């Protein structure tokens, strides 16, 4: 891999890590795969692009987070108040956002940001700007998230995904924790979309397609490689997972895989990662059978493993 490609995928990985942290909030702490993400990513990008064109790139990021927050609220409302299943609630909002995003973008399917002032203009002339600015934002978000998840509210937010019955039994309002959780999750996703839009100087109505799968892949890859022992480690794992995912994609492209196949690869990666427990059990079972049939060596190897 060329140095340029490596640098590119690290930069992308860092920006996508913010999205993955959002997915981590809904998927792991609330135990809800939230498909709103596909829509709110583009929503963030659209807000960011429009405001950047108007000359307010930083305001674009803030507006994106606000819009994502609202989108998450709608999904949560559909789920907690109207009792629509989380998956379906997410799909409905994702669909609705397609129209909303087109409206935000003034009816155009894409907005180029070439020669516009972006957040990266802040460090004009510095070659590392595309790295420094996202890293700063990512670190800020990780610190805030790490502190937030250990506050009184953060604790019941995390417990909601574990055991919502228990949260209600100790006086926690789970409708509220779900609402705030999904809203924050989508705010992060939208922020990531907003930065991507300015990073690649381009916003497209379909740029959010499959984003939730990429987020899930990052979360799961991170967990498999870096573990889940403590909260800090879990957050770091998500970020590193997002970067590993980007590197894998870059390698696949390097190997001659056409970019149009990327969604297929993402889906396969997530399917394999999600089925890891089943695959592991199956392999263990086979190993056991092999040991009972042939005894001896297999058994010793087994003992050594432990």
């Amino acid at each position, binding site marked *: 891999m060329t140095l340029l490609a490596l640098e590119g995928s690290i930069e992308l990985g860092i920006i996508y890590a913010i999205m993955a942290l959002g997915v981590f909030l809904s998927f792991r702490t609330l135990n809800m795969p939230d498909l709103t993400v596909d829509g709110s990513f583009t929503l963030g990008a659209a807000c960011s692009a429009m405001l950047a064109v108007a000359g307010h790139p930083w305001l674009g990021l803030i507006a994106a987070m606000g819009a994502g927050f609202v989108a998450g609220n709608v999904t949560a409302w559909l789920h907690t108040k109207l009792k629509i299943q989380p998956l379906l609630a997410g799909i409905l909002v994702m669909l609705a956002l397609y129209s909303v995003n087109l409206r935000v973008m003034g009816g155009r399917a894409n907005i180029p940001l070439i020669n516009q002032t972006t957040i990266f203009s802040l460090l004009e002339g510095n070659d590392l700007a595309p790295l420094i600015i996202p890293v700063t934002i990512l670190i800020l978000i990780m610190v805030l998230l790490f502190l937030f998840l250990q506050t009184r*509210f953060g*604790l019941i937010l*995390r417990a909601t995904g574990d055991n919502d019955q228990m949260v209600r039994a*100790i006086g926690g309002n789970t409708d509220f924790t779900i609402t705030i959780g999904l809203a924050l999750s989508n705010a992060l996703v939208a922020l990531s979309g907003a930065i991507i839009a300015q990073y690649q100087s381009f916003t497209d109505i379909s740029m959010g397609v499959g984003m939730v799968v990429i987020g899930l892949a990052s979360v799961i890859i991170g967990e498999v490689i870096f573990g889940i022992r403590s909260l800090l480690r879990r957050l770091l794992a998500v970020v590193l997972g997002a970067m590993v995912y980007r590197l894998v994609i870059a390698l696949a492209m390097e190997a001659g895989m056409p970019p149009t196949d990327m969604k297929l690869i993402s889906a396969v990666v997530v399917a394999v990662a999600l089925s890891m427990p089943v695959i592991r059990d199956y392999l263990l079972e086979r190993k056991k059978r092999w040991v009972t049939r042939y005894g001896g060596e297999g058994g010793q190897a087994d003992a050594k493993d432990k």
Partner: protein
Amino acid sequence: MLKINNLSKVFGQGSQNEKQVLKQINLTLAPGEFAAVIGGNGAGKSTLLNCIAGVHPSDSGSIMLGDYDITNWPEYRRSRLIGRVFQDPLMGTAYAMTIEENLAMALAKGKSRGLQPGISRSDRRNFRDRLAQLELGLENRMSDKVGLLSGGQRQALTLLMATIVRPSLLMLDEHTAALDPLTSRKVLQLTRDLVAAEHLTTLMVTHNMTDALAFGTRTLMMHEGSIILDLQGKERSGMTVETLIASFKKHSGEELVNDRLLLS
């Protein structure tokens, strides 16, 4: 402390499976009273507890707890006054969170749950002392995830969580039924000590008739959605399991055919 007036609950109203699970229940618990509730399957014991806790909304009647009319409160709001321990040891705790995090969540009951730090240093000291009283060695495992604990340890922890902020009412729904006999004894012992120390108003569902007579100050027997027997004072202390079965027959006009109730 607890005053229930004409509480009724129908499941599946209007359908073929319509079943009146609670029929005009009237029950008053004085402060510090410890009532054990027994009855066969489908007698309405758990439904009664769930209606008080707000898991199911009641169809008619009213529930007063302390000075509050909680009849229309949502479940989480009632929980600020009520501590609960469930039959399933998995239900009372968050398994992927640590012991101290679980306790901290319980300690924040009734306080604002904002952006204050979840656990303070003085909280930790408090938790260590409280856990040490359980004599299960949990005080040295405070940052272990609850998922690593045994069923008995979890029930003890849930009991501590339910009482760490003094509840107006403690409700135990067969909280030892899923434990082995020895652990079950220990958890019951612990329940008795905690209730006595804090002088808690308690409602305990059990399927064990001996326990229903031995524990607490009052025994309630439910049958088909009604309280058919309410024993306290002298009448209660004179009861044995045999006379209890006989009076069940007298009051319900039926044999007590419930292996689980008899054998335990």
